[in-house]
């Protein structure tokens, strides 16, 4: 078991390095750099971008050096000083820009996962154990509707409903009054009032998918002979369903955790723009458009790390839950 975990942990390092290289290369791949898009911007606003200024800027940001030098410097900064470089667009260190946003992203994503699971597991289990019942059909229908509605549309509708009928401004995470106030109980309550909107919106489609998966997995497991064995032992129906088939049916979810994290983080982008949430999504899009490479690169790197971390967590959990995996 420990050997297995250590193996996974060591694999973390080369995976991370490969991802960082690919990220850096991909961001550099489009022609031009931040300075050239900055020059276009200046020209568009009627100012003149002198050759001397551009050269000075390139030198200042190290853009005159070869790509691999830039890469090594950037990575070295991350590893030694946790310095993710300087955002040229915002003229601030990348770290200042993303840590807060990343924290909010993680909070929203985490709540969404929890909410999805709380909703999807019981419904999925009930649907499978009562296959083709009225309840099963209703949730199948609702599930497909939920999966079909684009989340940004749902967000817009919710915002409109809140505004039209309750006079609430549901954008952002705080009301006007609390936005810059220090943390207090009132501010926390105010946050909860806003937070449920993105959580619900983000949950809808993944809940629908999860219910379907849980139902299908469990239906497969319920037909397995070990369920009959348990029944023949004299277990009550709900006890045996929860102890045996549900336990086995959870495996695909646990291996799915790896993809849930990055999916939620990048999936929040459009919703964040619609609801003006302080997550990484909107910043990421702008940084890509202006070729603000250290900012874009850092966000991608963090997302990739989340995926690797998710894989690691799901590996551990799978090994805990399923003894057949431990014995590789």
């Amino acid at each position, binding site marked *: 078991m420990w050997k297995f975990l250590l193996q996974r942990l060591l694999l973390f390092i080369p995976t991370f390095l490969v991802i960082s290289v690919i990220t850096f290369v991909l961001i550099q791949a489009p022609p031009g750099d931040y300075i050239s898009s900055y020059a276009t911007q200046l020209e568009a606003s009627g100012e003149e971008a002198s050759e001397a200024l551009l050269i000075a800027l390139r030198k200042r940001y190290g853009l005159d050096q070869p790509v691999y030098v830039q890469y090594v410097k950037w990575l070295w900064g991350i590893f030694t000083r946790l310095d993710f470089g300087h955002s040229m667009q915002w003229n601030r260190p990348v770290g200042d820009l993303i840590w807060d946003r990343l924290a909010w992203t993680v909070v929203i994503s985490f709540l969404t996962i929890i909410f999805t699971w709380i909703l999807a597991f019981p419904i999925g289990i009930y649907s499978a154990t009562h296959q083709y019942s009225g309840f099963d059909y209703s949730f199948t229908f609702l599930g497909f509707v939920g999966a079909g509605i684009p989340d940004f549309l749902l967000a817009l509708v919710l915002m409109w409903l809140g505004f039209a009928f309750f006079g609430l401004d549901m954008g952002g995470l705080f009301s006007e009054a609390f936005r810059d106030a220090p943390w207090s109980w009132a501010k926390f309550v105010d946050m909860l009032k806003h937070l449920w909107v993105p959580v619900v919106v983000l949950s809808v489609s993944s809940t629908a998918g999860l219910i379907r998966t849980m139902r299908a997995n469990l239906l497969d497991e319920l037909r397995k*002979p*070990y369920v009959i064995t348990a029944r*023949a032992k004299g*277990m009550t129906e709900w006890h045996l369903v929860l102890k045996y088939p549900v*336990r*086995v049916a959870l495996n695909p979810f646990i291996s799915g955790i790896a993809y849930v994290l990055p999916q939620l983080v990048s999936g929040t982008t459009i919703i964040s723009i619609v609801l003006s949430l302080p997550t990484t999504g909107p910043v990421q899009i702008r940084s890509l458009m202006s070729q603000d490479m250290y900012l874009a690169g850092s966000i991608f790197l963090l997302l990739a790390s989340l995926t690797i971390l998710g894989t690691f967590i799901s590996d551990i959990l799978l090994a805990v*839950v*399923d*003894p*057949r995996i431990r014995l590789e």
Partner: protein
Amino acid sequence: MDPGILIDIQHLHTNFYLREGVVKAVNGASLTIAKGRTLGVVGESGCGKSVTAQSILQIVPRPGRIESGDILLHIAEGDLDETINITDLNPGDPLMRDIRGSRISMIFQEPMTSFSPVHTVGNQLEETIKLHQPEHRDEAPTRVLDMLRRVGIANPERNVESYPHQLSGGMRQRAMIAMALMLEPSLLIADEPTTALDVTTEAQILALMRDMQSELHMAIMFITHDLGVIAEMADDVVVMYLGRVVEKAPVRAIFHSPKHPYLQALLESIPRIQKRTGARLQAIEGIVPNPLDVPPGCPFHLRCPDFIPGVCDEVVPADTTVDEGHTVACHLYTD
């Protein structure tokens, strides 16, 4: 009820309600299981032998349901002497759950898939005690080790911590038997317990079952399609065809004076060592009818060499006693 009888099944009907129609998996079967003896139930796939066993435990899978008939379970222990009609109980009835796993337990064909893959053997064996005798839960681990030793599992202390996939097929079936016998039931239902095993392991498992039977004085309902295994294991035999019992007899009579044309044909089709090599095996004419569309009269008449027109295809034959303890459902033997 005869005190020597443990289970008395009368006119059992168990149906499966499918979209295509009703499958009468068990269609009026009657049979008895004597205390401490082995009843062999033979028949080809789909003849209703497994569903009969599932009906006894009320674990018929959906969309199947016991339609009518009686399954009487005779309980006599010390001062207690009562008869329970299992078909009167709901599958979820607490009394039914009490019976399952403690008075009647069951072992299955595939010991690999019949254990949960993600729980240790010990966990699954202890569960039987924890379910039925929660007051003895502290003794569960010792009793499990003891039982594993009795069924011949080497190194039980280590194997109790194993997961099913870490054991061999024969070991798994031994563990399965240990789990079923944990509470010393009065009936063990064995649904083709050796079909998935190789011949050597099969012989060991059969020997183990006989040993445990004489040790615990339990009855065994042994379901199989293998007449060789029946000859070795059974005291009494029931032959089933399309949901009906066509012949009941002590094991010797089954092999020495088979009466029903189906059983006669079945015995003819077994290859024999003494026979001339190169001779073709006898096969039964035709195929088993579609269970959704069972022919009227005797279920076997379409394939029967002794078919009597106007009788066999119209009237369902009743049980006729041909000898002591030997009955056959065939018009050839009615007066």
